[in-house]
């Protein structure tokens, strides 16, 4: 799998390259500025791009803008966006095109090699992986007449873990229930939210998130 990395901190960029190569990825390009990243993403068309939000020249949200711009040029291009801090606002912007293959994680998550590599593979496969912090804030949106109110607490838990990119098996393990129970809860979620059921887990999560974010 070919990866393009956009990260301006040398140590972290180097660390990412090593980590990914150790897990069997091929790093097609590792760049340190937004214009270079946009060029690399649009020209090299990798299987996934790993993008830091804060990049030169302005060191504000250049990376995020590159991500959105690249996906406009190549729809559905899988991108995993990393940041020192996560904002729901940014998550919304990334999920707006509903094309799947979006990840938005705190840089801290890089500490766990295997989990990070899993996230990369998930996003490359078209999945949605949101940082637990983003998901938890989304889930605590307490609205009396809002969509989340229609779900049971257990359903909310399952949905939250799905949005974090966990597989059904992982969710079952975490909640100490069976996989079948997880599937049942998932069906319940979609029924309660009034969404059409779908076979593709990723699309389902995406639909739910888009719905909640609207």
């Amino acid at each position: 799998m070919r990866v393009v990395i956009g990260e301006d901190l040398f140590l972290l960029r180097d660390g990412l390259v090593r980590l990914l190569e150790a897990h069997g990825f091929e790093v097609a390009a590792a760049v340190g500025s937004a214009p270079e990243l946009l060029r690399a993403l649009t020209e090299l068309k990798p299987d996934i791009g790993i993008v830091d939000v804060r990049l030169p020249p302005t060191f504000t949200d250049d990376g995020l803008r590159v991500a959105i711009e690249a996906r406009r040029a190549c729809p559905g291009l899988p991108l995993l966006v990393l940041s020192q801090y996560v904002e729901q606002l940014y998550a919304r912007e990334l999920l707006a095109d509903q094309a799947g293959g979006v990840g938005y994680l705190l840089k801290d998550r890089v500490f766990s090699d295997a989990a990070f590599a899993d996230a990369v593979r998930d996003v490359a496969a078209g999945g949605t992986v949101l940082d637990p912090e983003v998901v938890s804030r989304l889930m605590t949106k307490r609205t009396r007449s809002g969509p989340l109110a229609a779900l049971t607490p257990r359903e909310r838990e399952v949905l939250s873990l799905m949005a974090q990119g966990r597989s059904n098996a992982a969710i079952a393990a975490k909640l100490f229930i069976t996989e079948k129970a997880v599937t049942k809860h998932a069906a319940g979620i979609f029924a309660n939210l009034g969404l059409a059921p779908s076979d593709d887990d990723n699309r389902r999560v995406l639909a739910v998130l888009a719905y909640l974010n609207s």
Partner: protein
Amino acid sequence: MGHMTTSGRLLAAQGARLRANWPAVLLPLVAADTLGLFVGPAPLWLFIGAAVLAFLAPKEGARLTPFAFLAYGVYGLFLFHSLSFWSPQLVVYGFVHSGPNDNAGWVPFQAVAFLAAGVWLLAVTGAPGGAAVRRAAAQLRGTDGQPKTVPPLLLLLVIFLWEEVFSGQLWFSYGQKPHVVAIILFAAGVALVRLWPRAAAVVAVAGIVSFGIVGVLVTVHGSLLNDGDPTPTVFGAVALDDGGNLNALGLIQCLALAGLGCALAPRLLTWKGDAELAKRAQALTQRVGRLTQTRSDATEVAVAELRRIERDLHDGAQARLVAVGMSLRAAEELMPANPEAALALVAEARETSSRALDDLRGLVRGIYPPVLADRGLADAVRALAIDAPLTVDTDITLTAEPSMPVAAAVYFAIAEALTNAVRHAGADTVQIGIGYSDGMLRATVTDDGQGGADPSVGTGLSGVERRLATFDGILAVTSRVGGPTIIVIEVPCALPHVAGAEDGGWTEVVRSSG
């Protein structure tokens, strides 16, 4: 300068020095006039002496010139008073008169002009006594640059006194004691100025204008006030000679007086006087008091912030990093003997460092949220709205970005208002609106909760209010019990920064080249 000869360069330098001490140039002219006073057609040597002094030592010449003017003026006045009308010595002064029948009413004005020029030169050059003149002028001008009434009235009274003392008769004769009358009038004038400045201003203007106008009328129609009696000396001395012939220069003088009065009139008549000054002084004092208060508030707030940051760092991130260090050290020691335990400690250290990052993130958010720094006020408030646990609708119509301190103050004010809506009001929906008009940035936070908010009861709004006050901003809370709570934040500011200008347009560059 290289192409000049040595003498040329010397002259150039001399010229520069003269230009720098330009009053010195006037010295030879005054010297010539003074000569005329003493000995008529003058020996050249005094004039030459003054010219040489001006050229060789322009600085000293410049210092002497004001005194020369003053002496010339004083001497002219005494001359006019003590001598009969015509004498050779007046040739210089009254160079427009040629015969014994000519009046010399022009002389006092010339003398006064020389005196005034001397005083002004004292003030503008580096002559000794100049500082005193400048101080007196500043005094007359008053503390706020407005002229006081004294100068115009003084001018009128000086004219009175003058003509009386030097021409022997008042406008309308008061018998044998004209000097006494002049002094009484002067005292009355001063009293008028102190008690009713505005009335005094009116009298001064009227006096000046009437001098001028009546003088013109007298010139045109002959004797106005008396039949057969000598025309009023004030005017007769200037506009008409004894033979009733027109004195053009006197007429010009009358017109100048009238013009002076009319020019002064608008300024004096619209001047509000001491009461207005007192009101303005009070307003200024209040403003200074408020600025002092908000400044001390701002520094208090800043210091409290810094102490909070220091405490949070100490108790949070610093403590955790210490724990990480200890875990790693313990792991180091355990590694050879008990690798599994060491591994557990390393995992713990990693976990603790994650917590430390969480702490730092929270701290940074409380100081200056990154989204506010990166995206500006509008998006930062939208992010607040999205993050809030209840439904928040935003209506933000800002086209430009306020300055960072104002943006931060408004952001934290809105954040506090939102927190209160969530925590105390038990609301379902909140509306946040931000707009800008007429130099005022206005933000409203409306929630449909139970109301009854009291800003004085530790809701954090008072702290926000103080922070806003630093920018002359206000915070108003409307919160009836049972009804909605509306919080309005207003801050006067300019919107110079255009949002997104820092992009640099590089996305366009890449797209067009790629």
